[in-house]
């Protein structure tokens, strides 16, 4: 029995010591911040529940164990119920659920809007398109596109328009906030924002086949100025993306980082019904082929 009790302080220690390093509990932007607050708020309630149950459980098990010489002291086999106390332990959970529901619903509605930022610029629009097993990030206003990495300015909301060229994926940058699904034939909107400059890990978190574990990307959050410099550099130095080249890149497989000075949005939007079967029409046979993907191997890029 004591083992279960020791779990509790252990979990607290782990939790508190971990806040500094555990990504989700160490938010780098307002979206992740609001989600972290909600999580901590719920953990407090949950710890109280766990404490009450564990304490009652320990009391019952220790006090009422059938030990030698106990006899029939404190033994009453026919207690079948107690209405007042049953009402209490029905009402208290209802109160707790209500206390958890209110901030949950509030946060849900907040997440549908761009977070408030220190500068009053409109959100930066980025189309994030998942394809087996890479990410295309298109900046329509800047006219640039990147593969498997992303630059964003700090203190400005980013409006991700999520879609997929083929199988379902989920864009997740835990340091900046929670995920949403990328699906072909429809578009999701996800608002995220970075307040601290840094490099954050992003990934597809929804299983979509063999290259899933490698479908990751890096997010470079930097000051407005640095971001503008990067955009200008990309616009002038990166090659243009042709449709033929884009079609070749869509072929299932892994890709290195790349940058282009135009976007694929001119000829296809995978998040619309007409764009839903764009990739599958072109590469149907390639989806069944296995990559024989192993750990730590050179990623087989195919730049045709």
């Amino acid at each position, binding site marked *: 029995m004591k083992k279960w009790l020791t*779990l509790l302080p252990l979990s607290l220690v782990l939790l508190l010591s971990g806040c500094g390093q555990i990504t989700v509990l160490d938010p780098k932007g307002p979206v992740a911040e609001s989600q972290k607050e*909600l999580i901590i708020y719920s953990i407090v309630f949950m710890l109280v529940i766990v404490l009450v149950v564990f304490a009652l*459980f320990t009391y*019952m098990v220790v006090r009422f164990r059938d030990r030698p010489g106990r006899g029939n002291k404190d033994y009453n086999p026919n207690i079948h119920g107690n209405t007042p106390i049953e009402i209490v332990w029905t009402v208290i959970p209802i109160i707790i659920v209500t206390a958890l529901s209110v901030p949950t619903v509030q*946060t*849900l509605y907040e997440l549908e809007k761009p977070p408030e930022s220190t500068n009053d610029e409109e959100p930066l629009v980025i189309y994030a398109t998942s394809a087996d097993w890479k990410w295309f990030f298109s900046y329509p206003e800047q006219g640039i596109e990147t593969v498997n990495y992303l630059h964003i300015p700090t203190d400005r909301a980013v409006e991700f328009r999520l879609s997929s060229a083929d199988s379902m994926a989920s864009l997740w940058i835990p340091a900046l906030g929670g995920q949403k699904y990328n*699906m*072909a034939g429809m578009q999701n909107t996800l608002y995220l924002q970075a307040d601290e400059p840094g490099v954050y890990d992003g990934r597809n978190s929804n299983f979509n086949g063999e290259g899933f574990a490698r479908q990751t990307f890096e997010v470079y959050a930097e000051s407005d100025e640095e971001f503008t410099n990067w955009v200008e550099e990309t616009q002038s130095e990166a090659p243009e993306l042709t449709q033929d080249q884009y079609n070749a890149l869509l072929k299932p497989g892994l890709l290195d980082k790349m940058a282009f000075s135009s976007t694929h949005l001119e000829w296809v939007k995978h998040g619309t019904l007409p764009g839903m079967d764009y990739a599958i029409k072109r590469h149907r046979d390639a989806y069944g082929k296995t990559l*024989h993907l192993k750990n730590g191997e050179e990623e087989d890029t195919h730049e045709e």
Partner: protein
Amino acid sequence: MQLDEFFVTGEPLIYAGMVSIALVTAATIFILTYFKKWGWLWREWLTTVDHKKIGIMYILSALAMLFRGGVDALMMRTQLAFPDMNFLNSQHYNEIFTTHGTVMIIFMAMPFLIGLMNVIVPLQIGARDVAFPALNALSFWSFLFGAMLFNISFVIGGSPDAGWTSYTPLAGAAMSPGPGQNFYLLGLQLSGIGTLATGINFMVTIIKMRAPGMKMFKMPIFTWSTLVTAFIIVFAFPILTVALALMTIDRIFGSQFFTLTGEGLPMMWANLFWMWGHPEVYIVILPAFGIFSEVIATFARKQLFGYKAMVWSMILIAGLSFLVWVHHFFTMGAGAFVNSVFSVSTMLIAVPTGVKIFNWLATLYKSKIQFTVANLWALAFIPSFVIGGVTGVMLGMAAADYQFHNSYFLVAHFHYVLIAGTVFACFAGLVYWYPKMFGHKLNEKIGKLSFWFFLIGFHVCFFPQYFVGLDGMPRRVFSIIPEWMPLNVISTVGAFGMGIGFVIFVYNIYYSFRYSEREKTGDSWDGRTLEWATPTPVPFYNFATVPHVEDHDAFLDMKKKGQTTFDEEKLEPIHMPSSTGQPFIMMGIMFIASFGLVFEWLWMAIAGLVGVLIMMGIRSFDYDDGFHVEVDEIKRTERSARRL
């Protein structure tokens, strides 16, 4: 088709699997032939319609599946222990987590519980069999052949690799060609027939066949949980049947229900899957709640606290289970309103569940707790399940779920509820009812050893996963980054601890078979409900005379009044169903038809389906309506069973 396309080649682990399958099959055939046991096997087991034997076959198959799913789990944990592991490559890992999930839910948890229901529920309600005994046998064979079909996939054709949820478009023909995904669809379809039939069977059995005097609110709590589960099955399984059929038609006949081409709606699969899949979670947890209630009341030597509240909360949970399926994809972008509704309905399930937890705690109040192995499993459930439950509430908070979704936080949560709930209940129920099934108890010392290994291993394995999930580790990746290593190593150590616990458990079965004292009475634990009122071994007709029930704990009441289920004055001939080989043969043919469909050999599928129709015809004109057990035979059987 080439032979090397038919058999899976190139993987040393799979060659080892093939060799062991061949060896076990050869050994089985040799033993059956050498000891001339084929006739016995056919007469006593393959053609039986006795609910107790069917239950035992369910449990043995489920234990085998627990072994298979457990080996899958250990292989995954080995691969994930260190960042540079290449024990499994990506494709092989994907196949293993897919089969692990499917096997554990469909072919382990559900059959294990259905096995316990089969053995116990008719006994608990004072019935002589289930309502439709031949259908019950059909259910079992449909499950077993479905499980076999799914399990041969790893040596023949290739395992499914799209996850146990099998999301489209990934699981569709374009992105997952080949037989692997077909094995999933047809294996589940075949066994699903049996589950649906079981639901109907138990619904009718419990409603129509209770002993006189046993009103609905006098039924034992495990029977109640079975009844509620039967209702969930009957409402949920048709959804799965239809969804599987639609995807099968998509894959084999080129329709476009869930495809990216045509007018396909890939996300409709996710909806249909979870409209079945969420209630399914309660199909495997409610019977577990019933088992814990029985075990705790028996070994606390006390009446269950708040019986009516326990029953109503199960009914409420069953109702709510159909209203929360969207919480499996809060991140689909349904909008704040939809997510709010499903978020609140999800959290509401915590209320009846909390009521049950407190009722179990109150059952312990002023009790005399005996720490038998069965009770240890039941007691360990309470604190362990509470950890899983509260993290479930956290996942139910949609706005926070955006961060938990698809991460190891989720993996930790559902293992905490499913292992602490269902697996602990399977062990508790098996140990508790073991003497009723096999005529001897399991050794308590070895049982305790296996319990502690499993329990500590379980917490060591899954508790760290909450934290690695919050650190951004997604589920289903086959490789980890160095930052996640320490917690993953701990987790893997815990997994092996559970493995050792299971091995000790199986050893205990062998040890107790050899050395345990045989049961002399039917009442092994000073029981409270009617299953303990029969002698052990239980005669095939269960009760010589059916008692009149007046109280919840009917047998306790009988013991007080000095009544028995063998009242020589009241003996009458008993009508019992005859054994029949039809369910076995029919499902065997169905297996062949399904196998044909898996490889898209339509000639084989059509021939098989015609065979099934012929079997149905034969069944319709089968006028064998059983036989009567004469009073003399009952007297002889009971006297020897009761050592009178």
